[in-house]
């Protein structure tokens, strides 16, 4: 069974600085998708960024980018120029590439604090 691990329960960053959130996963599959979701205090789940395992290029969405290391099964999220609105819990998630109804498997989450 696939597992997702986020080893940092809490992280802190100064406003305008850069922070990296770690995620590792375990799978025997070669085709899958990885996601980072943001959950602010409202508890809404907001998709931040996605990565297809078959793509070697790391995904980027504005200030958010990932470092996808397929061999190491690592998928870290880098937030550049951190803003106060980035403060939230961040979840890494895995989805199988086989079939159309794949569930998301989430990590335990990392709470990000942004200091002014």
């Amino acid at each position: 069974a696939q597992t997702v691990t986020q080893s940092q329960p809490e992280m802190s960053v100064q406003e305008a600085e850069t922070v990296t959130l770690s995620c590792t996963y375990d799978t025997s599959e070669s085709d899958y998708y990885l996601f980072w979701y943001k959950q602010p205090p409202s508890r809404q789940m907001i998709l931040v960024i996605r990565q297809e395992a078959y793509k070697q290029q790391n995904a980027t969405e504005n200030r958010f980018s990932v470092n996808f290391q397929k061999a190491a099964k690592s998928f870290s999220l880098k937030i550049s120029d951190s803003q106060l609105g980035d403060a939230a819990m961040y979840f890494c998630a895995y989805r199988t590439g086989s079939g159309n109804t794949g569930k998301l498997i989430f990590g335990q989450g990392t709470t990000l604090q942004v200091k002014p």
Partner: protein
Amino acid sequence: EPEVTQTPSHQVTQMGQEVILRCVPISNHLYFYWYRQILGQKVEFLVSFYNNEISEKSEIFDDQFSVERPDGSNFTLKIRSTKLEDSAMYFCASSPIPGQPNPYEQYFGPGTRLTVT
């Protein structure tokens, strides 16, 4: 932009009572999911649903739980006899069919906070 909606936003119920949580997925999506999140913990998969039947369910989704798509727009989660440990945030999600953009992405609703007393 289309979005998933859920009602109610907060439901308080007594132990042993039945609750129905409602979701309206994005209109052209055909894959539906329920997840739950106990406060302070990770989000856990409950069930996926396609073509009017359950595709996959987790160990959490026991006989006390059921899902239904009663009409062309709603997707419901029923808990027959609630327990204290059912208190959690319940998220509905939907995803597009193959051929649409990003068919592997799931779009989440805002959640229903269920409190069992």
